[in-house]
């Protein structure tokens, strides 16, 4: 074993072309591992132009990491229905459904893996698990599977058995499993019957931002801003946020609720707000990133993460770093590390509303809590996450 292991890392996406937290996490982890002299060859699926049949270099800002785009229509957070709508059938080259596509990606990764040396393959989440397993088995190298979210988180139990099957089999085939929280470790143990000792918890870090933020605050001189950030999917619990909003508005009418994100429930949430009669007090911003998102964080009075099931919850750390008090779902990973946050069951809209009202009426108290939360989040760095991951690499390769 060499001191600086060569890692074949498989992910879904990287910023700025990301649609969620997974890309951010992969980016932070890969960058910090590279700083620890780990050789990382990062491969991700990407629909490439017609004249590039197999793979291409991928434009990125990671220093010391080689990133390759593998031709594939796999995209993160895609649903099976969405896949079959957007991929023309009959296809030449593309598989018939999302699951097969994950296995086609695996074939491409095997080809790709034959062209380079690596000591270990490290894959992030289910779409790349078949590829991780295949590369590991054909090349006889160990496989680490990292779980950022399970099918149970995404669907609340109404799972797609094919995806759950991929997760279960891959996690059993992996030499080691990393989860992003104890919360997720527990889900993996409970639902996939994995032995706890096979699982290492590595909490995500937080990449400090240095955006020059022009705060939006001055545009809302009379309103309290309550912020949600996340994809508009079942998992994120926006419907509970809206129901809590209705209750808050009965008590504090000059509160404005901002829903930042896009997703398959966009239409449903718009209509829910309308049915609740609170449309005037709910702003849907669509998907935001970087400066715009930072501006929102800096304008907010309180941040709510009402997730039905949140393996980690990077957005909560971003909010805390921007000085915003947070209210977190008990079903989240981030609550393990942030001790100074208001916690609520995602379904308890009465309590959620009460906590929101409390935060906006007693801002001093809320901001005291935020300062303590900032202390809690200090150890959460990508350096720490990378060190822990590297230790696991050495353990597996040895």
């Amino acid at each position: 074993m060499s001191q600086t292991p060569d890692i074949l890392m498989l992910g879904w996406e990287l910023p700025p072309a990301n649609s969620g937290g997974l890309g951010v996490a992969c980016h932070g982890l890969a960058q910090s591992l590279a700083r620890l002299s780990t050789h990382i060859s990062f491969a991700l699926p990407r629909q490439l132009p017609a004249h590039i049949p197999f793979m291409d270099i991928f434009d990125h800002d990671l220093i010391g990491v080689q990133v390759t785009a593998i031709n594939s229509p796999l995209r993160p957070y895609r649903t099976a229905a969405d896949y079959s709508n957007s991929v023309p059938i009959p296809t030449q080259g593309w598989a018939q459904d999302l699951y097969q596509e994950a296995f086609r990606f695996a074939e491409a990764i095997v080809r790709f893996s034959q062209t380079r040396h690596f000591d270990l393959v490290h894959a992030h989440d289910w779409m790349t698990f078949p590829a991780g397993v295949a590369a590991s088995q054909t090349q006889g190298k160990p496989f680490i599977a990292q779980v950022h979210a399970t099918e149970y988180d995404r669907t609340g139990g109404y799972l797609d058995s094919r995806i759950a099957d991929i997760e279960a089999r891959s996690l059993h085939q992996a030499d080691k499993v990393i989860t992003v929280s104890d919360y997720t470790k527990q889900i993996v143990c409970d639902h996939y019957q994995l032995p706890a000792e096979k699982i290492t918890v590595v909490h995500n870090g937080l990449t400090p931002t240095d955006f020059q933020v022009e705060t939006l605050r001055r545009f809302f001189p009379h309103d309290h801003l309550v912020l949600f950030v996340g994809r508009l999917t079942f998992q994120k619990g926006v419907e509970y946020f809206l129901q809590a909003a209705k209750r808050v508005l009965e008590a504090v009418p000059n509160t404005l609720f901002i829903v930042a994100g896009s997703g398959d429930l966009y239409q449903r949430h718009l209509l829910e707000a309308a049915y609740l009669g609170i449309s005037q007090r709910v702003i849907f911003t669509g998907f935001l990133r970087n400066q715009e998102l930072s501006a929102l964080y800096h304008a907010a009075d309180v941040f709510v993460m009402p997730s039905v099931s949140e393996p980690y919850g990077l957005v909560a750390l971003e909010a805390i770093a921007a000085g915003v008090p947070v209210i977190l779902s008990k079903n989240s990973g981030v609550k393990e590390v942030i001790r100074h946050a208001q916690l609520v069951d995602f379904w308890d809209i009465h309590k959620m509303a009460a906590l929101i009202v409390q935060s906006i009426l007693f801002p001093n108290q809320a901001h005291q809590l935020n300062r303590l939360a900032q202390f809690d989040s200090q150890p959460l760095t990508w350096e720490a996450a990378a060190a822990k991951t590297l230790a696991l690499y050495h353990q597996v390769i040895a």
Partner: protein
Amino acid sequence: MPAVVLYFHLHQPLRLKPFSLFDLSTTTADLNEAFAPVNQPILHKVAAKCYRPANQMMLDLIRDFPDFKLSYSISGTLVEQLSAYEPDIIFQLQQLAASGRVEFLDETYYHSLASLFSPKEFFRQVSLHRQMIRELFNQEPKAFRNTELIYNNQLAETVAQMGYQTILAEGVERYLWWRSPNFIYQPPGLPQLKLLLKNYRLSDDIAFRFSNRDWSGFPVTADKYAHWLSALNGSAQVVNLFMDYETLGEHQWDDTGIFEFFRHLPAAVYRHPDNRFLTVSEASEAFPIMDTVDIPEITSWADLERDVTAWLGNPLQQQASAALYALESPVYQAGDQNLIKFWQQLTTSDHFYYMCTKWFADGDVHKYFSPNNSPLDAYTYFMNVLHALRLKLYANQTTSPLEANSYQLITGIPAHDYRYSSAL
């Protein structure tokens, strides 16, 4: 020998741009920033394809046929845009008005749904329109058409009180029963107000079906159409052909032969003995009132339903319009003319039309007319623009009206004691 009443409606909305929270800073500096840059190129296109050639054709027809007459109404929203960017169209319309054979009707200045929400605002916008017609065309309109032919008994009463002698409405079958739209009617209890009902079959044969190859009537020529009109002889006194002016060249493109059709229509109509064209007001005086038509429900000329669900059918539209009209009193109380005008511009019905989520045949039409990707986007942009308006409205106040009693409600302490520091 029915009289043919040709009435065209001219309107182009002032569309909103895809408006996010991050447009607040530019828009609070200049409210006109809320409007889409595409408005001007679209106007330019419609002027070139429809207004300019259509006006010229009508001027020619008036010159060539001494008895050819027609009626128009035009929204203030369009007049303002034309004056700014295509002023020759206004000049053409003035020439038409000066011919003495073109009647201009009144409507709401901003092509709004004000009749459904606020009698006060309705009156304001009709007055504005009246003043505009007087100044531009030197006419005092005696006839009224509400936005999208939105109509019911109550509106008829309001319009009669405002002194109009004629009102237009859709010939909705569920209220006509066995009766034909081809006569003059009156609303219940209002003998002084003539009701002209659109013959939607013959109107839509031109407006919607003209280029439809699957339609049994295709292709429709001026002679064929004049024959259909003549066939009504004995069972009709007027045939009310009401449609968007944009039918000519914009909804039906030039290559469908729509201009040829209209160019030949007068000659074809006059070929049948005793046929003639009348303006809206002439027609309402030329024939006796045949019956009373009772329309308690709100009807319109839109979609298959002929009601107002195209603008107010889903909760998004209902919320958006409620939010808009909730700002009416505060905006007028503030008294800032710019804010009032901006608010009025937001009353334009098209903003709500874009939020329509109806499917099937009607959805196609909505989609064609919408500048937005989806009704949901249209709704989101509109609500964000309302936030911009509210921001301007309450800029100089230390508390918003919403805020006034909220703290007291919860804490029993007056609001200003609990204002948080702006440093946060």
